[in-house]
């Protein structure tokens, strides 16, 4: 909690808490206002009803015995504890009887319901001894003119019905509004309390829930800072709760893993380029140096330069292969694929290599039935297959029997398999076989053969691009290289 207030307000959790608090408070205030006005209206209606009842009772008394009975009833009722307000005044507004000592001027001048609550003062407030003395009542009444004008600040509020009796005297029946006002005060207190509690609740929620979320976000940004600092093996924390934060962390982690793989690949490529291109470059330089140093004939220069060109071409080829593998591994758009007939590819490549095989004394056989159509890139498939056939021809020459390379196309389960098998020595060691498709790996006995060591890696990258596999299986004898393509969906 060492954060300063502006810093706290910058956090999402605090902002959200504040926003929720504000919205909640507005809603609560509106609700309370609605409720109080509604209940105040209800209470007013109730009060008016009570007054109406009173007036009815008084009217009956007046009918029974005229003004004296009315005055008696009024006086009797006035003395009851918690009595309503009663007042009878003469035509000039002089109070004759009742329990009202003074009231706001003008109230009794208009007949009917008072339009708004008015303030008044009852007899006996602060002067209890005079309350029961009708004589002093009379005295007070005399001096009430001035009192009426100075309406007391300590007076109560009431509503009343003002009537004119048949003899033109004025009668007022009213009811104190103390009850609805107390009710309003209670509601107001409750509102203040509720708002206070809500504020406290908001703070608590922010403290426990918001801060927990905040903490996790902080740990994620902390971890990403570490990773950006160079620790690419670092991962974001996953709590195992399976919530949004975990999902976010998991996704970011798999992104990091992908980046790490690509980065690793890049590093490997640059290492391999450095290692594998250094040798031919050094050879190139040495050849040029040696040619320059001795006394040479023109034909020697020509020969050296031609050798240089041949060597450069080989370098360019190697370079292109490296670039191609990297690009394939980085992933291509599927734009470059179409329907490819594997059988046609096999025929093309076998036909391309047939003279080479014949020259090397290798029999090149094919075994396939009808057309096998897969989704892919004809160019890439042709290149992969030609690399594999090229290898097979080279390595079948050490066969004990008659060297043979067999290209077979078949459907196994939901895969289309294109296999190239030779009957040479093969790669007996499982680990060696697994390593053979790695970049620049040239197994011991292949060192004497020309090649960049990229042929099988390129084929593997091409198969990965086709969502397929490249497997090296031990033959009997020899080696079988299998390209497995997923069957196209609508087949």
């Amino acid at each position, binding site marked *: 909690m060492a954060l300063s207030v502006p810093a706290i307000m910058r956090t999402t959790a605090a902002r959200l808490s504040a926003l929720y608090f504000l919205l909640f408070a507005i809603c609560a205030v509106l609700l309370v206002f609605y409720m109080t006005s509604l209940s105040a209206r209800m209470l007013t209606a109730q009060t008016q009803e009570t007054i109406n009842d009173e007036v009815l009772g008084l009217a009956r008394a007046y009918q029974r015995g005229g003004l004296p009975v009315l005055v008696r009833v009024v006086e009797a009722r006035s003395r009851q504890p918690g009595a309503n307000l009663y007042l009878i005044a003469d035509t000039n507004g002089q109070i004759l009887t009742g329990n009202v000592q003074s009231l706001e001027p003008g109230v009794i001048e208009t007949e009917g319901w008072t339009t708004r609550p008015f303030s008044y003062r009852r007899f006996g407030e602060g002067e209890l001894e005079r309350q029961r003395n009708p004589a002093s009542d009379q005295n007070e009444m005399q001096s009430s003119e001035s009192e009426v004008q100075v309406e007391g600040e300590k007076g109560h509020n009431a509503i009343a019905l003002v009537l004119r009796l048949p003899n033109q005297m004025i009668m007022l029946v009213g009811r104190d509004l103390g009850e609805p006002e107390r009710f309003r005060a209670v509601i107001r207190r409750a509102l203040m309390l509720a708002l206070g509690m809500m504020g406290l609740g908001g703070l608590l929620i922010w403290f426990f829930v918001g801060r927990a979320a905040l903490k996790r976000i902080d740990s994620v940004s902390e971890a990403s800072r570490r990773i950006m600092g160079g620790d690419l093996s670092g991962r974001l924390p996953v709590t195992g709760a399976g919530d949004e934060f975990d999902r976010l962390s998991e996704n970011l982690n798999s992104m990091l893993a992908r980046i790490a793989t690509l980065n690793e690949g890049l590093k490997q490529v640059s290492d391999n380029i450095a290692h594998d291109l250094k040798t031919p470059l050094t050879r190139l330089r040495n050849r040029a140096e040696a040619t320059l140093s001795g006394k040479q004939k023109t034909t020697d220069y020509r020969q050296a330069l031609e050798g240089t*060109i041949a060597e450069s071409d080989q370098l360019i080829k190697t370079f292109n292969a490296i670039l191609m593998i990297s*690009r394939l591994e980085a992933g291509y758009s599927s734009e470059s694929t179409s329907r490819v007939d594997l059988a046609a590819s096999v025929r093309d490549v076998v036909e391309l290599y047939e003279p080479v095989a014949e020259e090397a004394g290798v029999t090149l056989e094919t075994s396939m039935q009808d057309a096998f159509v897969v989704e892919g890139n004809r*160019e890439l498939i042709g*290149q992969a297959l*030609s690399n594999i056939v090229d290898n097979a021809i080279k390595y079948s020459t050490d066969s004990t029997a008659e060297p043979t390379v067999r290209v077979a196309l078949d459907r196994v389960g939901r895969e289309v398999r294109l296999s190239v098998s030779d009957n040479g020595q093969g790669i007996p060691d499982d680990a060696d076989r697994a390593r053979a498709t790695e970049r620049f790996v040239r197994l011991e006995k292949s060192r004497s053969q020309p090649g960049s060591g990229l042929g099988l890696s390129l084929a593997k990258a091409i198969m990965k691009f086709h969502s397929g596999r490249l497997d090296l299986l031990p033959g009997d004898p020899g080696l079988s290289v299998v390209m497995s393509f997923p069957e196209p969906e609508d087949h």
Partner: protein
Amino acid sequence: MHMPATQSSSEIAYNGSMKILVIEDDREAADYLQKAFTEAGHTAHVAGDGETGFALADAGDYDVMVVDRMLPRRDGLSVIAGLRSRGNTTPVLILSALGEVDDRVTGLRAGGDDYLTKPYAFSELLARVEVLNRRASAREAETVYRVGDLELDRLSHSVRRAGREITLQPREFRLLEFLMRHAGQVVTRTMLLENVWDYHFDPQTNVIDVHVSRLRGKIEKGFDKPILHTVRGAGYMLKSG
């Protein structure tokens, strides 16, 4: 690097010299190309950016253009598309450092006629540019190709030399057909692989050499004069005498 090509320039002069426009922003590479084209007997103009290149190509009458894909001010493909939309049909060879699988396709779709990925050998570029020369493409329409005493009938699929029938496999026929169409021009191994087999990759072994030597056996064996020559460091050339 261009030594063998220079040596063979006298033979290539069969087509006469060409006027070549090179649009390439790399100053050094452009200068080298200009010098090398001049040594090969051609005239080369250089534009350093797309807009200048477009203006030059639009105004001048060039035989072939060599256009780099990534250029300042205007992209190479846009230059080509712009020229094509103005009815300019000058053959274009696109140079690119990209070399992705579908680069070739997008390049050719934009109106390019050939595509070469950097780094390349100048001998390869020269051979391709000379084959692109539009004066050479006139042979497309001919039905019978003749080079010296060698004759190839494209309709009856028959080949004769000095009146003697020579039997060729279908692929050998296409190989010879391509060589004869570009007789007197250097044809590289990759050009043969592209045009006869429709593959654009570099085979690990020189498979093309074996095919060519087989073909050579058939069209030269029993005849006193060689006709299918190897141009060292570059490729092959079919030429009488």
